[in-house]
């Protein structure tokens, strides 16, 4: 689960990680109040809040350039904020449809001496948290790792011991810090790791982390992702979820415990099991089609879930044909077939449907489909089903 920068910085601040002072506004009449909370006469940074990176270099759909602006007066800050709020920002991460800016974040500008990179994430190769730091802050860290790997510091943390003081010092020394900024960096690392661990984050990224001429160490940006499996123990984090940042079809699917991801093709699919669902997308592509979604209905889907899954699939206007691929194990094919028939009748589905059933009670399942009188295309193998559905989508 992702959150906005302003939410991440509030969490940082609560956890004792130093951030610049900032305020937010979600409508024009909140601008004045938001700005009054910041020091006047100093430079400010005005930031559009969306769940995507590359905001600074993004362009709004109305032609206005840049989602992050450094300004020298509150008048200028107001002008930038008005230009951004309510408009759609397109960045390299949003896709061409972009995202509407619903929140503006005002920050007091920071005197920067030097920029650094800092991240804590779960390293699946070692099954341990790892801290990644670099003197090359403000840059694309993947490019730094590619071109100058010697500038990337990595410290692996034993999950049962936590981050030890010598490890925090190792990183601060590695960043060539000294004096006050060394001490502050060690403190910040400890607090940031504690935050990462206690809140079940999957990744915390600070780019850039900065030092100021007076020796302060601050997180100038904050990107936080949470482990979705652990949200049950963090109701405070769940409250930060911004549904307007997510695909409405995905939000709807999550209400019924359906694992759905929207894609831009025209062949929809409904599958049991994540691996088989991915493989079904792949085979659609293999036969020249383009998948409209990923959908895993899980191992024990009931009739209600099947019906809701169909409803979500057909709500996508781009969908020209649907492939149902079920390998019934514990889930019985006759039960699934009944669910499909009932859902198709209830929703009065017009989109052509190819159904491939295999596994427990498969013959009974096929009989139910055949007896239904619905215009379903049965298929005996996944390859046959994929070929058929791609053809049907092309004809539609």
């Amino acid at each position, binding site marked *: 689960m992702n959150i906005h920068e302003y939410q991440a910085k509030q969490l940082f601040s609560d956890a004792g990680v130093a951030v610049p002072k900032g305020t937010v506004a979600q409508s024009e009449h909140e601008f004045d109040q938001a700005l009054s909370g910041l020091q006047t006469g100093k430079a400010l940074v005005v930031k559009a809040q969306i769940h995507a990176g590359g905001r600074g270099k993004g362009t709004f759909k109305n032609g206005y350039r840049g989602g992050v602006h450094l300004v020298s007066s509150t008048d200028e800050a107001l002008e930038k904020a008005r230009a951004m709020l309510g408009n759609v920002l397109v960045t390299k991460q949003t896709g061409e449809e972009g995202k509407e800016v619903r929140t503006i974040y005002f920050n007091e500008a920071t005197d920067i001496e030097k920029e650094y990179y800092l991240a804590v994430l779960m390293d699946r190769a070692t099954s341990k948290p790892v801290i990644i730091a670099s003197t090359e802050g403000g840059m694309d860290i993947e490019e730094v790792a590619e071109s100058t790997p010697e500038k990337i510091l990595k410290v692996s943390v034993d*999950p049962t011991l936590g981050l030890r003081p010598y490890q925090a010092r190792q990183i601060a020394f590695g960043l060539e810090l000294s004096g006050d900024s060394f001490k502050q960096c060690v403190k910040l690392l400890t607090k940031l790791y504690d935050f990462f661990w206690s809140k079940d984050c999957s990744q915390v990224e600070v780019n850039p982390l900065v030092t100021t001429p007076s020796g302060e160490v601050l997180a100038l940006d904050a990107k936080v992702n949470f482990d979705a*499996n*652990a949200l049950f123990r963090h109701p405070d984090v769940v409250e930060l979820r911004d549904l307007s940042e997510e695909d409405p079809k995905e939000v709807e699917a999550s209400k019924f415990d359906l694992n759905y991801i929207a894609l831009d093709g025209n062949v929809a699919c409904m599958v049991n099991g*994540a691996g088989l669902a*991915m*493989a079904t997308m*792949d085979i659609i592509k293999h036969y020249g089609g383009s*998948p409209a979604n990923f959908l895993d209905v899980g191992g024990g889907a009931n009739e209600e879930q099947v019906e809701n899954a169909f409803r979500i699939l057909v709500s996508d206007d781009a969908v020209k044909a649907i492939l149902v691929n079920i390998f019934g194990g514990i889930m019985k094919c006759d039960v699934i077939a009944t669910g499909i028939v009932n859902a198709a009748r209830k929703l009065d589905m017009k989109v052509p449907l190819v159904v491939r059933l295999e596994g427990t009670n498969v013959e009974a399942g096929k009989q139910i489909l055949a007896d239904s009188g619905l215009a379903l295309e049965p298929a005996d193998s*996944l390859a046959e089903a994929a070929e058929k559905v791609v053809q049907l989508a092309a004809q539609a």
Partner: protein
Amino acid sequence: MSVLVDKDTRLVVQGITGSAGSFHTTQCMEYGTNVVAGVTPGKGGQKFRDSVPVFDTVQEAVDKEGANVAALYVPPPFAGDSILEAIDAEIPLIIAITEGIPVRDMAEVKACLDASDSRLIGPNCPGIITPGECKIGIMPGYIHKPGKVGIVSRSGTLTYEAVWQITCAGHGQSTCIGIGGDPINGTSHLDAVQLFNEDPDTEAIILIGEIGGSAEEEAAAFIKENVDKPCAAFIAGRTAPPGRRMGHAGAIVSGGKGTAEAKVEALLDAGISVAETPSHIAEALFKVWDA
């Protein structure tokens, strides 16, 4: 012959009285699995299906019934703790079916596991089956047939697909190991391939992987250097968009790492027969295995 589980396995089921635990344990018993005990804290003294003793702790199941394999159907918030309990009771093989365990809990489990002699399979997996002898997990038993193909996979239904293709072609499986779809798991593709390579009755190996991480590449490197048995593979997720988790917590391409292309390339480089589609997994094996 087989790897890890067989007719001599003495299984204890953690979470045996829950809905998933009791349903799947019944299925496993009907298949012939030797279930010797169940564990549900607070329900010690009961009998499951009038025959299997239920204990409060795993240690009691070991002491009183000689359990040597544990299967877990414990809900995610408590599953990490249940695995730790099984490790503490020195159970040699622990199979965690549970999906949705927090990664932090698994990081702690993995650290304890590395310091122990126990092996973990899963979590978030269908389990393990040696056809005709022992089924532990949620896979449909009847699609399997005793035979000579060892199968290791991160996905449940995709494994059934491969198993069914082998069975329909008149062959069978030595053991099928579902290692699970989570980013932190107990047994890797590499571990399973090593086991199959050493098993005299496994003649051929099928490896089913998916996007995310580098476990398939590590197995490929091992196969290239050490394995003479015929191997086939399939990788799911060629069409998955980068940066999105595809159902499984571990199935994600991030920062350009863990792509299907890189995995397929590593497998081909190791001389492994890679199936183009999930419908052609058995066919890919028969290209290199003269069964």
